[in-house]
């Protein structure tokens, strides 16, 4: 049914259609509307049988789901940023134990400094935890990915993280087609656990594995994870057959067929980029954009194929690899480097800084003209940071102060949105 609703509510409806039996979460902006909506669906009796448990921390939330999933229940939670990091130990544990938990991450920056706005720092911090990581470009995409996530998780016996930009998507009210219960039931069969805690057939889950066997255990987990690369496109096709809409998959390309410049990005920024691509195409620039729907496992082959023929790749990166050269940028760069294709990593949108069409046009133009460094920051206040760096150089020993840097900076309205 076509609805005009807030992204969070759309996701909650989609999750409810998947019939989770245990939902457990801790509130954190900007995930709150998702969890509140699911909680209301449970309390009103629309989603049952389901236990909705309010816990005392995100660490507890993931842990509750570990216990529930191991006992045969389909499980769901949502979190962001600090909350995702707080449950880190349990996140790794869930993947290691092979539990098909589905979690929404409403992407948000990670402190310090504390910041409640959108970027991808949180998901990036957990990219090696062994979860499948999917990124939604729109709220429609988010709805579709959550439904596919439950089936993917249960088939692979691996947890799946569906990432959607906090506030930008979660709090946007837009048009979404919500599948029917009948469609979802057809696509998603009941959960059949690979391993279950059951007095009739006792098993020991989570014992110690020493040096003599740990490597093999991890290798096998990796093999399972990589198995998602084959399964994800198949599930997307199956989903398409059931709901009549193609959604999901590993990567999706927009106007890349003859593109000399290809932009690669995750999440909602791709929408804005598509408008910029259209504008630049009208002026004769051969440019396209690729959205990475699946980030982990990293779809090397699919992405390499999508970038075929490009002279240059511009990666928009909503995270910062401290002390390094980019996360998505590094992954993408490694793919195309031996073709002679240049990769430009543009760090943008950190901490919710708005990315305007004008800024994107400018930076794409700079990449095309070769005026861009390998790693650059979009819309950085160069004057402010240069002043502070000069002061630090002269005054060795005092750490940088954000307050000092921005004390005299007027922040235009456009940046806050």
């Amino acid at each position: 049914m076509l609805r005009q609703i807030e992204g969070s509510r759309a996701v909650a409806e989609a999750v409810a259609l998947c019939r989770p039996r245990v939902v457990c979460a801790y509130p954190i902006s900007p995930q709150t509307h998702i969890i509140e909506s699911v909680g209301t669906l449970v309390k009103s009796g629309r989603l049952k049988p389901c236990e909705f448990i309010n816990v005392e921390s995100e660490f507890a939330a993931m842990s509750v789901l570990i216990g529930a999933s191991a006992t045969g229940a389909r499980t769901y939670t949502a979190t962001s940023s600090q909350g995702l990091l707080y449950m880190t130990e349990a996140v790794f544990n869930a993947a290691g134990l092979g539990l098909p938990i589905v979690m929404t991450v409403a992407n948000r920056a990670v402190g310090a400094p504390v910041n409640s706005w959108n970027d991808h720092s949180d998901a990036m911090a957990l990219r090696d935890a062994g979860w499948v990581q999917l990124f939604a470009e729109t709220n429609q995409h988010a709805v579709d990915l959550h439904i596919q996530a439950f089936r993917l998780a249960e088939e692979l016996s691996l947890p799946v993280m569906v990432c959607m930009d906090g506030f930008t998507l979660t709090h946007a009210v837009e048009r979404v087609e919500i599948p029917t219960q009948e469609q979802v039931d057809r696509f998603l069969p009941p959960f059949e656990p690979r391993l279950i805690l059951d007095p009739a057939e006792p098993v020991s889950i989570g014992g110690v594995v020493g040096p003599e066997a740990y490597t093999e255990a991890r290798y096998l987990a990796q093999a399972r994870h990589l198995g998602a690369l084959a399964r994800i496109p198949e599930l997307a096709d199956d989903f398409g057959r059931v709901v009549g809409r193609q959604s999901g998959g590993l990567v999706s390309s927009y106007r890349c067929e003859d593109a000399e410049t290809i932009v690669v990005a995750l999440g909602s920024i791709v929408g804005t980029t598509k408008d910029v691509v259209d504008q630049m195409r009208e002026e004769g620039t051969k440019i396209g954009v690729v959205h990475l729907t699946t980030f982990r496992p990293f779809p090397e082959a699919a992405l390499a194929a999508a970038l075929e023929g490009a002279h240059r790749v511009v990666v928009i990166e909503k995270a910062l690899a401290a002390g390094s050269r980019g996360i998505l940028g590094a992954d993408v760069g490694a793919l195309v480097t031996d073709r002679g294709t240049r990769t430009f990593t543009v760090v943008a949108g950190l901490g919710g800084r708005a990315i305007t069409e004008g800024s994107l046009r400018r930076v794409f133009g700079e990449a095309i003209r070769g005026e861009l460094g390998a790693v650059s920051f979009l819309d950085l206040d160069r004057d402010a940071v240069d002043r502070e760096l000069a002061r630090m150089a002269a005054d060795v020993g005092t750490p940088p102060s954000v307050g000092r840097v921005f004390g005299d900076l007027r922040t235009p309205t456009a940046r806050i949105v």
Partner: protein
Amino acid sequence: MFQVRFHGRGGQGVVTAAELLAVAAFNDGRHAQAFPSFGAERSGAPVASFCRISEREIRTRAPIDEPDALVIQDATLLRELGLFSGLKPQGYLVVNTAKTLEELGVAGIAKDLPANHVLSLRATEIAIAHLGRPLPNAVMLGGLAALTGVVSLAAVVSAIEERFSGAMRDGNIAAVTEAFNQTRLGPEALVAHRVSPGRTVGASPD
């Protein structure tokens, strides 16, 4: 594409206003995207919300730097710098006030806009008359709809029906309809608005 920016203070339903507009556009069969300015939730702080309306799928998520219409729900915000920034030369302006724009001190901005694109709407008074409380957010949409034609009254009413229930629903529908009709009749009708006898009209927000 038609882009609207709403300004108000936390607690005044500014976010709801943008969402209602988006739902109204949807009810009219068009694409719409509404989103708030995001920040710590506290009452009284300046808040903005946004709505895009288009015939085609809306893909961009960039901020609305050049709105086609500005809806100012709280006239005390008129003192804020940058409130009018980016408003298109042929843009629309709806202000919740019982005063004239000269009295508010913003005639300078309004004079650059076409005369029939500017509306002072006594939304709070209308809201109090029909809802008993100073909740002008939905009422402003009635004025906006009549002024710009970007959504139909029926679509706004339908959006209100979906969102509210009971007295809030009925009151908002009556208030929106009155604001719409009065705006259609011309600004003079709104300035001369009278509430029904026996009700006390609260002080206007400015």
